[in-house]
């Protein structure tokens, strides 16, 4: 490996990693690159995007207020399609959230060092996506001011929640997920908040960042507890992600509805979540790294790796579709066959179905080609298509299964109203607004972790000793830092 390191960007060894951190950085220049964006005055681009997302957020306020004033009759939901846009969007947003935890937790446990530059970004995405997700079931209850009825509290009614219901499991899963993600994100943020405090220019900044950094001073004794704590949080987040989307899939799988009642659902939903989550990370990261000057820490290798994950999970999702169809045929249940072979592919929502197939089954296969995996425009368009495809998947699962089930007498067509669309676009606005604020007020890249990685790479380079430190740090040494 040492010999090929000098060969430049094109290398024949498939195990040869591409750079994790551009080699010319030291601690000081990393600070300047990564902290600078926070201290800069917001640029025109930021203000413009913030304006757009804020407008969309206004739409959310409008849609929600109208719903609260008039009741959920203003939505397109009907009998039999009682779960429509609200549950579609709920599942879609939760799924998007999962990539953050996966990048943070699973890649940390597997010692995948390339996660370092993107985990903060992805975790923020998780947090905001889960907030958007949580909004939908809350509104879906119709009377959100009674949402506390879902929690076990000693009520004067003398009744307790029904713990055999997947909907109650959902409440616990989503609230736990949001809390744990927030703790994980915040604890990772503390050292960087301290760095912001210590490089702040005004007294107000110093006080505010000082408050949030809790007096962190990089003490060796603190790091000692911090390191193990962070690892444990990663360890418990990994099964947590799997459990959350498994439980979300139980909402469907535990029923007897054709199209929902399938044992493939938990793994298929988890794979779909990772698929859409990574696609969202690529969608957001491609422009952000360009405009924030983060190319040195979020390298082409990161993007390529994420595209590989999208390809792999895309294939799992395709397998899920195949299994659904196979089991429908194998069971010879006429209701299942109707749903999968007649209604979905040729029924009133066939357009959405084929869009889903095009986006989720065909699109990711472009990443078999290295040219596509490393081409910024191709990956960006593909990632957006995947997001669209995954939304269509949830639409197909929910609407086509509900609108024609066992009795033709109770069949109906579902059409979303303007309120449905406003609330959906509004949550995109909420997500975007929170994200823009995140980019402006905290470092989008975990600085202390990038520095630690840089130091490890240098250590490893010193051990190899055959060639220059910079070459080694750039090219060859991600496989064994110690």
């Amino acid at each position: 490996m040492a010999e090929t390191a000098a060969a430049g960007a094109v290398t024949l060894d498939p195990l040869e990693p591409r750079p994790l951190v551009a080699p010319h950085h030291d601690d000081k220049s990393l600070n300047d690159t990564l902290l600078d964006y926070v201290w800069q005055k917001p640029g025109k681009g930021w203000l413009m995007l913030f304006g757009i997302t804020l407008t969309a957020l206004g739409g959310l306020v409008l849609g929600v207020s109208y719903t609260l004033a008039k009741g959920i009759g203003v939505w397109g939901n009907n009998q039999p399609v009682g779960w429509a846009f609200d549950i579609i969007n709920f599942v879609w947003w939760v799924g998007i959230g999962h990539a953050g935890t996966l990048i943070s937790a699973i890649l940390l446990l597997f010692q995948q060092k390339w996660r370092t530059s993107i985990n903060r970004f992805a975790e923020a995405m998780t947090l905001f996506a889960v907030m958007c997700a949580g909004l939908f079931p809350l509104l879906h209850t119709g009377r959100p001011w009674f949402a506390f009825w879902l929690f076990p509290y000693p009520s004067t009614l003398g009744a307790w929640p029904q713990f055999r219901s997947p909907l109650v499991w959902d409440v616990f899963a989503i609230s736990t997920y949001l809390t744990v993600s927030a703790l994980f994100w915040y604890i990772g943020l503390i050292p960087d908040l301290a760095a912001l405090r210590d490089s702040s220019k005004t007294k107000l900044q110093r006080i505010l960042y000082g408050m949030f950094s809790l007096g962190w001073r990089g003490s060796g004794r603190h790091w000692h507890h911090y390191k193990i704590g962070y690892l444990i949080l990663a360890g418990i987040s990994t099964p947590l992600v799997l459990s959350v989307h498994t439980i979300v899939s139980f909402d469907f799988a535990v029923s007897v509805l054709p199209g929902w009642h399938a044992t493939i659902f938990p793994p298929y939903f988890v794979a779909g979540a990772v698929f859409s989550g990574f696609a969202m990370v690529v969608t957001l990261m491609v422009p952000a790294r360009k405009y924030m000057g983060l190319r040195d820490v979020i390298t082409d290798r990161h993007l390529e790796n994420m595209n590989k994950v999208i390809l792999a999970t895309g294939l799992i999702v395709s397998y899920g579709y195949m299994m659904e169809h196979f089991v429908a045929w194998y069971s010879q249940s006429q209701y299942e066959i109707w749903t999968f072979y007649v209604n979905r592919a040729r029924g009133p929502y066939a357009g959405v179905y084929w869009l889903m197939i095009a986006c989720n089954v065909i699109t990711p296969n472009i990443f078999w080609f290295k040219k596509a995996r490393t081409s910024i425009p191709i990956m960006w368009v593909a990632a957006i298509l995947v997001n669209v495809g995954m939304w269509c998947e949830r639409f197909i699962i929910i609407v086509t299964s509900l609108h024609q089930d066992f009795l033709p007498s109770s069949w109906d067509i579902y059409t979303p109203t303007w309120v449905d669309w406003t609330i959906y676009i509004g949550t995109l606005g909420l997500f975007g607004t929170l994200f823009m604020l995140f980019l402006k007020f905290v470092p989008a890249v975990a600085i202390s972790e990038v520095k630690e990685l840089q130091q490890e790479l240098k250590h490893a380079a010193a051990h190899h000793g055959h060639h220059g430190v910079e070459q080694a740090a750039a090219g060859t040494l991600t496989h064994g830092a110690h």
Partner: protein
Amino acid sequence: MDAPVLDSWVLAEFATPDDLVKATNEMRLKGFQGMDTYSPYPLHGGSEALGLPPSRVPFIALGGTITGAFTALAMQTYMNTIDYPLNVGGRPLLSLPAWIPITFELAVLLTAFGVFFGVLGLSRLPQPYHPVFEHEAFRSASTHGYWLSVPKLAGVNVDDVQTQLQSLGATQVTVVSGEKE
């Protein structure tokens, strides 16, 4: 945190993390106690250099896990089996398999709280004021500086400590006091 409350520290900055770890090791071997290192990221071999015992965070986390799982099982059993029995399609009142999801979630939640408050508690955080912040140059500890603090012990000459630190490669040495005067 194990150190007694002291009125002043000798603070020394080192040029690289490796110098800092080496110096910490040397000072510990010389018998200095209650020292602390400060760096923008965890030092390779830093805990060993300070001679710290294994962190107790994992035990606190385990306590959270057990409490969470037990609470969830007890809660569901009491609420759905004893206090408000619900017969759903003739399923047993004590339906343990149905209680796995919530038991798992609550166990994870309390583990996370254990880790979070364990790390903060053992680190004595939040602590908005600390004497080392009095030294302006120390602000580099969170960005690119590598510092060592040696508490001033009774009967030890401060100048002597400073000389020793300088001979170990400290780029600057200073004394900070715990009290504003």
